[in-house]
């Protein structure tokens, strides 16, 4: 599996370098943003980094504002955000979490704590990705079920079904394609009386005639 990508956004170059070195040592790939605006640009795209470490206090856009913007996007697999903050009071922490951050780490970051928290984030991201994949495949299955619930045009005589592409298909073919149903051929008592028995009797008649013919020779 590819290493997860982490965005490190901090206007302070020493702390940016130290945090990046910690992440790289733990096996993550790192991209940088020098301020809040740049962080938002790198997060507001089709394939944003899985995790982001955002400094709280940056010129321009501050960490919590960036988080609010990310959350407003309403992605199915949103970026996991950890705020880096020199502030440690519980009021600040609550404010950061309310803005939509998943977690916070106080600065200067302790390596073991930072990596432990980032690893938690990575687990959440992986679960989220697996869940999104599962939802996608269930939606696909559901679409097939829906196809079976619609009104199906059927030939009144030969019982063929007209599919979405306007082709007439045998009932068996149609249902095998649109569901997990497979068919095994048999006959009902009514059709036994109507088709099978006369055929068997006819066969027996032929056999008796052949026997008589042999005896007569």
């Amino acid at each position: 599996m590819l290493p997860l990508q982490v965005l490190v956004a901090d206007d302070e170059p020493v702390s940016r370098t130290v945090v990046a070195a910690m992440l790289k040592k733990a096996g993550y790939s790192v991209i940088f943003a020098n301020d809040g605006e740049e962080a938002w640009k790198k997060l507001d795209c089709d394939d944003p980094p899985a995790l982001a470490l955002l400094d709280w206090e940056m010129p321009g856009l501050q960490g919590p504002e960036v988080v609010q913007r990310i959350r407003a996007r309403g992605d199915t697999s949103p970026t996991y955000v950890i705020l880096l903050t020199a502030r440690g009071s519980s009021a600040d922490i609550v404010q950061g979490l309310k803005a939509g951050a998943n977690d916070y780490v106080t600065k200067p970051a302790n390596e073991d704590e930072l990596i432990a928290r980032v690893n938690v984030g990575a687990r959440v991201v992986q679960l989220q990705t697996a869940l999104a994949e599962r939802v996608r495949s269930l939606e696909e299955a559901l679409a097939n079920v829906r196809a079976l619930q619609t009104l199906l045009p059927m030939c009144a005589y030969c019982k063929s079904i007209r599919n979405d592409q306007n082709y007439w298909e045998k009932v068996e073919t149609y249902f095998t394609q649109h569901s997990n149903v497979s068919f095994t051929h048999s006959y009902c008592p009514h059709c036994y009386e109507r088709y099978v028995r006369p055929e068997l009797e006819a066969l027996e008649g032929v056999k008796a005639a052949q026997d008589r013919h042999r005896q007569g020779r």
Partner: protein
Amino acid sequence: MSMDDVLDPTVIESLRQLTPPGEPDVLTEVLTIFLQEVPPRIERLRTSWADGNIQEVQRAAHSLKGSAGNIGAGALHEISRQIDEKGRTGDLSGMAPLIDALTVEFGKVEVEIRRLMSN
């Protein structure tokens, strides 16, 4: 850390340990960036103080606090923290001596960094 340490040896050691095998030394990289980035910010802080731009003083102090904390420069971190705090609350009493102390303490840190890097 002991109060005499300009740079906390535990922090320095953990920065040294961050270097991946075969890569350039992280400690050297961090200390080099520190020496490049910090003097202009102290300069900016001093001019902003002279101009009476307290918001800029606070910003510079806040970022100095971050830099100092990351290399275990305890005293420099504490002085920056106090300037940051004063700038935030607008309590300017004792600000001038703190800014002088900041310059003096940075001098000590710089000497220590150069000693470490020449080893």
